[in-house]
């Protein structure tokens, strides 16, 4: 069964460093999302991406964050200068259509020291 894959599964970084989280959505999917879950808290929407541009973003998704689909298969989330509060599990998701089932990756755990 096709699946969304994310790398790395866990990354530890120093505060102020740049981090890139990678996702490979399901190949025929057109809508892509990033979510984050701070330990013990709810899953929060970060950004949605369609037709090579951001379609929606939350207030969490500030100038420190950016997304890119560099090569037609990868979908990346970049955090320019990480802060302690960026420590969280980051989930990528994709869907074939606007109202279709969201398929989630296993998540990338980011720890900022």
């Amino acid at each position, binding site marked *: 069964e096709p699946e969304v894959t994310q790398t790395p599964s866990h990354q530890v970084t120093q505060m102020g460093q740049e981090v890139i989280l990678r996702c490979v959505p399901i190949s025929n999917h057109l809508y892509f999302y990033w979510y984050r879950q701070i330990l013990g808290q709810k899953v929060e929407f970060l950004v949605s991406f*369609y037709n090579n541009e951001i379609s929606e973003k939350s207030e969490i998704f500030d100038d420190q964050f950016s997304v890119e689909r560099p090569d037609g298969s990868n979908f990346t989330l970049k955090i320019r200068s990480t802060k302690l509060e960026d420590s969280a599990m980051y989930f990528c998701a994709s869907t074939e259509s606007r*109202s279709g089932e969201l398929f*989630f990756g296993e998540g990338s755990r980011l720890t900022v020291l």
Partner: protein
Amino acid sequence: SQELEQSPQSLIVQEGKNLTINCTSSKTLYGLYWYKQKYGEGLIFLMMLQKGGEEKSHEKITAKLDEKKQQSSLHITASQPSHAGIYLCGADGIGNQFYFGTGTSLTVIP
């Protein structure tokens, strides 16, 4: 923005017992999704409900959508330790946003 409130926040049940988790929306639900998250892991899709009054079952898990109440319930019959995890409801919001509920942590004691 749309808010999805889940109750209870956490649940501890004895193996074999039935349980129900509720998800209440602040706005009209046009589609409601249930996901399960094992602690520290990814999100597993359980069910999607789109029509008012719709009910779906998968193995021992049944979910219902009541649009009038802007609410959905997830019912597990004869719970097992494998059911343990965090259950999240989710819904389509305005634009391309998708919102998750506050989550319900389920512990099943053997």
